C-alpha cells in the first residue's frame, strides 16, 4: 500500500514526474561538469582536433539516428499509455528497448575496433574524455533499457501506466545528451 503522502499533489505536478525532473536536474550537472571539463581542455589543446579525426562519424551518425528513432517510440508509448492501452504502450517500449540494445551493440563494436587499433583510453587526453563521456552516457542507455524491461512488463498487464511517461522523459534526456556528445566527439575535428 502506498503512503498517503505519495497520493498527494500540492504542487499539482504528479509525484513521479516531479521526481524525474529533479533527477534530470542532477543529471544535467553531472554531464555538465564532465562536458564542461572536456570543452575547456579541448580549447586548450588544438591538436586534439587531429586526434578526433580518427573517430568514425558514420557510426556516430547512425547511433544518433537510432536514439532519435527510439525517442520517437518512447513518446508514442506515452501516447498509448495516456489512452490506457497498456499492450500498445508495452509494444512501443519494446521498440525503444530495441533501440537501446542496438545503440549498445554498435557502441561496443565501435570501441572494439578503436581499441584494437591502439586508440586506448590512456593514449591521450582526447581519448580519455572520449571513453569517459561516451561510457557514462552508454551506462545511462543500458540502465534505461533495463528499467524499461520492468515497465513494459507491468504496462502489458495494464499496471503503473504513468511510469511509461516517466521513463520516456528520462530516455529523451539521454537522447539530448547524445545530441551534444555527437558533435563534441565526432564532428568537431
Amino acid at each position: 500500500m502506498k503512503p498517503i503522502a505519495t497520493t498527494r499533489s500540492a504542487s499539482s505536478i504528479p509525484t513521479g514526474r516531479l521526481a524525474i525532473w529533479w533527477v534530470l536536474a542532477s543529471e544535467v550537472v553531472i554531464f555538465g561538469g564532465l562536458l564542461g571539463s572536456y570543452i575547456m581542455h579541448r580549447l586548450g589543446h588544438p591538436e586534439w582536433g587531429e586526434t578526433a579525426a580518427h573517430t568514425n562519424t558514420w557510426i556516430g551518425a547512425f547511433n544518433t539516428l537510432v536514439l532519435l528513432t527510439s525517442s520517437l517510440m518512447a513518446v508514442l508509448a506515452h501516447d498509448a499509455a495516456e489512452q490506457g492501452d497498456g499492450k500498445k504502450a508495452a509494444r512501443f517500449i519494446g521498440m525503444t528497448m530495441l533501440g537501446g540494445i542496438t545503440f549498445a551493440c554498435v557502441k561496443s563494436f565501435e570501441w572494439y575496433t578503436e581499441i584494437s587499433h591502439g586508440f586506448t583510453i590512456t593514449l591521450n587526453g582526447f581519448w580519455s574524455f572520449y571513453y569517459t563521456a561516451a561510457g557514462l552516457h552508454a551506462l545511462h542507455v543500458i540502465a534505461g533499457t533495463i528499467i524499461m524491461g520492468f515497465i513494459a512488463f507491468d504496462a502489458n498487464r495494464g499496471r503503473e501506466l504513468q511510469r511509461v511517461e516517466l521513463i520516456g522523459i528520462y530516455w529523451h534526456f539521454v537522447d539530448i545528451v547524445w545530441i551534444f556528445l555527437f558533435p563534441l566527439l565526432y564532428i568537431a575535428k
Partner: protein
Amino acid sequence: MSAESHSRHYIKIWAILVVLLVISVIGPMFGHKWLTLITAFGIACVKAYLVAKHFMHLDIEKAMIRWVLITSVVLMGLFYAGTAPDVMEHTGLHWTNDAAIYASENPVHEPGDHHAAGAGEGEAGHAAGEHGGDAHGGGDAHGAPAGAEVASTAEAGSEQGGETEEAAAPAPDGEVAEAAPATAGAAPGFDAAAAFQSSCSTCHGEAGDGNGPVGAALNPKPANFTDPAFWEARDDAMVHKAIKEGGAAVGKSPMMAPWGSTYDDAQIDAIVAYLHHFNTAGGATTEAAGETP
C-alpha cells in the same frame, strides 16, 4: 482521432530531427571551420530544443520545472566561466604545465606515434638527469618537458611565504614529466637516474647533496650522498633497507619514506648503485676531486 494526429505530429518532429542530423553530418564536408561549428553545435541546440519541447512536453509542463532545468544549465555555465581561465591555459601564476605544452606542440597522430614521442621524452629526461649535477642549473637550458622548472617554481612558492600548497601544486608538473621516461630507459624497463629525479630529488636534491627544495625545511637534514662520510658509515644493504622500509627501519629519521611498494628489490639495488655516483670520494667528477683533501 486526436490520438492519430498526436502520433502524426510526433513522426513529423522525428522527420525534422533526421533532416537536421543529415545537415550536421554534411556540414563539415565543406571544410569551413565556422560552417562546421554552426552546423554541429547550432543544430545540436535546435535538436535538443525540439526533443525537450515536443517529446518531453516541457512546453506544457509547469513553469517551475523549466526554471529548475534552466538553473542547472546556468550553474554549469558559471562553473565553466570560473574554471576555464585556469584550465584552458598551460601556464599561470608561478606554474607551467610542461607536459601539456609538450603535448600540444607534439600531437599524437597515430597510436604508433606515441612510442616515438615517448622515446623523445626519454632523451629529454636523460638530459635533465645528467645536468642535475649542477645544482639549479638545469632551469634555463631545456624547453622539453623535463624537471627543469621544478627548482624555479618551488622557489617562487617558498618566496610566497612558504606556502606548502603553492609548492605542492606546481612542483609535480615538472617532476612527473620525468617519471614517464623512466620506462623508456636502457635498463630493462627501469631507469635509476629518472627514478632518483622523480622520487628522491625533492628532498635529497637533484645533485644528491641533501638540499632539495622540500628537504631544506627538514630537521634532521636529508642524507647527503656526496659526503664520503655518509658512505663510510653505511653498507649497501643498510641503504637498501632504508629505501625499502623507510628511515625509521634503520634507526634514522622517520621522514625518509618507505618505497618498497613503489620499487621492487632489483630496482632499489639499481637506485643504490646509482647513488654511489654522487660520492665525491669515488672521484667521479673532476671538480669534486678537487675539493676532497
